[in-house]
């Protein structure tokens, strides 16, 4: 119980810390950010429920006014901004990445890479595209065009998430809540 | 001044989060055995980090054998080794042998694995090689950090509370071993007994040098003051 709580808090903090890695601004206004790596890790390391809880905790603090999103952003304005689709997708992506890591019958490195890829890349960008299409009043294919540039970076992040999860499985098996 | 041997601080001070932790210090440290004593929070660790180039001076400058420790990392590696106060702040790798081999690999040692094995065998701790570092006891981790520093054989070794967590036999053995080393040793401690045999002892008090001289004199003054403070029920001045 205590362990779930501290690990959830730790990973919420991890997403915030990854927000300090300088982001790259694209013309679309949605940055390329290391924070989506944090979202993936929440799922692959903590599992579906705890991973989603960590992301929700992070979002709660951000909305409350802590400048924890990449570039030092935060506050209620985010709810009306075009990246809202991504923000809504964050906890769902972590949940799915975690569920796949837990239930896929493969070695941990592979399972978590697949989980990170499907949850943190496919699903998350899906949410993001829908969000942009609603907020900017564009059709889905038009909005999808805006999300295309993230694919390369997100693929690298999914592989990295798999590697880190595998390292944890080897060096601190007890900390891998997604596989217990 | 440029190529002066030893450690030179020229008006060096450290300010962190707006608080001056070390007031401008000018020091030339050339003795073989140097002790730095002081109370908790007096700035001992900050001074070590300043000397090691890990905290840049807010004013003034620091030189180790004429080198700038913050910049010439590569040249410095052969000159300066550090034992950190908290083993958790020093250990980088999951197993003992990786931790010990790391410094040797960085120095370009021809056969790090063999050197590590030899060391562990000499310490009767060959069974440690594959042990996970995070399951070692606190004292064991501390000792591991010390072995890692000694293995790299640097010209000057900075030791931050080297004996704090070690048991008596290990401490006795280590004291003999350190005494036999040809290197310059700078030992930081709040327990003056650990530096009783030093050539020179500095007493750091709230970021100032309060005394600097032969071990016997500095330690005597320090111990008297500590005993006086210990009599009181609480700090009357605002320590830390």
């Amino acid at each position, binding site marked *: 119980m205590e362990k779930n709580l501290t690990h959830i808090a730790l990973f919420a903090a991890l997403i915030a810390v990854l927000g300090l890695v300088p982001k790259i601004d694209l013309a679309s*206004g949605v940055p390329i950010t290391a924070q989506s790596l944090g979202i993936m890790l929440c799922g692959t390391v903590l599992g579906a429920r705890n991973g989603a809880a960590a992301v929700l905790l992070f979002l709660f603090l951000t909305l409350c006014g802590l*400048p924890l999103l990449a570039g030092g952003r935060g506050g209620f304005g985010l709810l009306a901004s075009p990246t809202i689709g991504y923000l809504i997708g964050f906890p769902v992506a972590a949940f799915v990445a975690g569920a796949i890591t837990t239930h896929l019958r493969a070695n941990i490195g592979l399972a978590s890479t697949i989980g990170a890829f499907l949850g943190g890349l496919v699903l998350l960008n899906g949410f993001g595209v829908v969000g942009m299409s609603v907020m900017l009043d564009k059709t889905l294919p038009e909005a999808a065009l805006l999300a295309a540039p993230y694919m390369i970076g997100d693929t690298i992040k999914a592989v990295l998430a798999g590697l880190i999860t595998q390292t944890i499985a080897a060096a601190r098996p007890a900390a891998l809540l997604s596989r217990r | 001044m440029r190529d002066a041997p030893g450690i030179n601080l020229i008006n060096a001070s450290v300010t962190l989060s707006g608080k001056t932790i070390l007031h401008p210090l000018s020091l030339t440290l050339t003795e073989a055995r140097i002790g730095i004593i002081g109370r908790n929070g007096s700035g001992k660790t900050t001074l070590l980090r300043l000397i090691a180039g890990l905290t840049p001076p807010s004013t003034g400058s620091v030189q180790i054998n004429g080198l700038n420790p913050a910049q010439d990392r590569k040249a410095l590696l052969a000159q300066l080794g550090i034992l950190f106060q908290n083993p958790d702040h020093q250990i980088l790798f999951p197993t003992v042998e990786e931790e010990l081999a790391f410094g040797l690999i960085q120095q370009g040692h021809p056969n790090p694995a063999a050197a590590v094995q030899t060391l562990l065998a000499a310490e009767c701790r060959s069974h440690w090689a594959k042990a996970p570092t995070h399951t070692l006891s606190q004292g064991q981790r501390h000792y591991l950090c010390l072995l890692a520093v000694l293995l790299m054989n640097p010209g000057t070794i900075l030791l931050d509370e080297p004996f704090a967590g070690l048991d008596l036999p290990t401490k006795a053995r280590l004291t003999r071993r350190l005494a036999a080393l040809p290197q310059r040793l700078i030992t930081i401690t709040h327990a003056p007994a650990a530096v009783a045999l030093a050539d020179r002892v500095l007493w750091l008090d709230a970021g100032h040098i309060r005394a600097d001289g032969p071990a016997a004199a500095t330690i005597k003054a320090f111990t008297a003051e500590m005993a006086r403070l210990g009599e009181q029920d609480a700090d009357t001045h605002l320590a830390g």
Partner: protein
Amino acid sequence: MLTLTSPVETWAHRLPAGAKLGALTATTVLLFALKSPLALAAAATLVAAIIATGGHSFARASLAMLRPLLPFIVIVALWHLITRAPGEGAAIVLRMLAAVAAANFVTMTTRLADMIATLQRAARPLARLGLNPRTFALAIALTIRFIPVMLKRMTTLRHAWRARSPRRPGWRILMPATLAALDDAENTAEALRARGGTG
């Protein structure tokens, strides 16, 4: 920790957080109901006027917080000029600006502790779903502590690396940092158990 609350005290700082959040919700619903560019322009002007009551430096800080929207505005403007529907484009941009600026106004005029307390109260019905308010408060405190701890941990590990290596660690610090962070969480869990645990 730095928050987005403005150090410039405005009249709105003294209003209760709950009232401000209620007003913000109503404003946002209204903004999304409005379709005409003219009505939206009026609404945006009103929001700007409210922000201006905070004074010069407050208004400048508000403006700075809108900067991330700039690329979107450029894209929408270009798009609607190409498709020859400038009215629609103006409506989208004005709605976005007004809604975000109004929300930022609430954030900037509410202290973090008040905001957390208010939202926690609003979330109280969730207790029936198993969200214990004390556990939630603890999780918030732990997260806020872990951020500097993790940063400091990265620094100490980087220093530990530099103390024994001529090269900077770069990404290689990630592995020891991850493991150290997990150890920190593990130790924190025990410290928590030692003082009565959660709940």
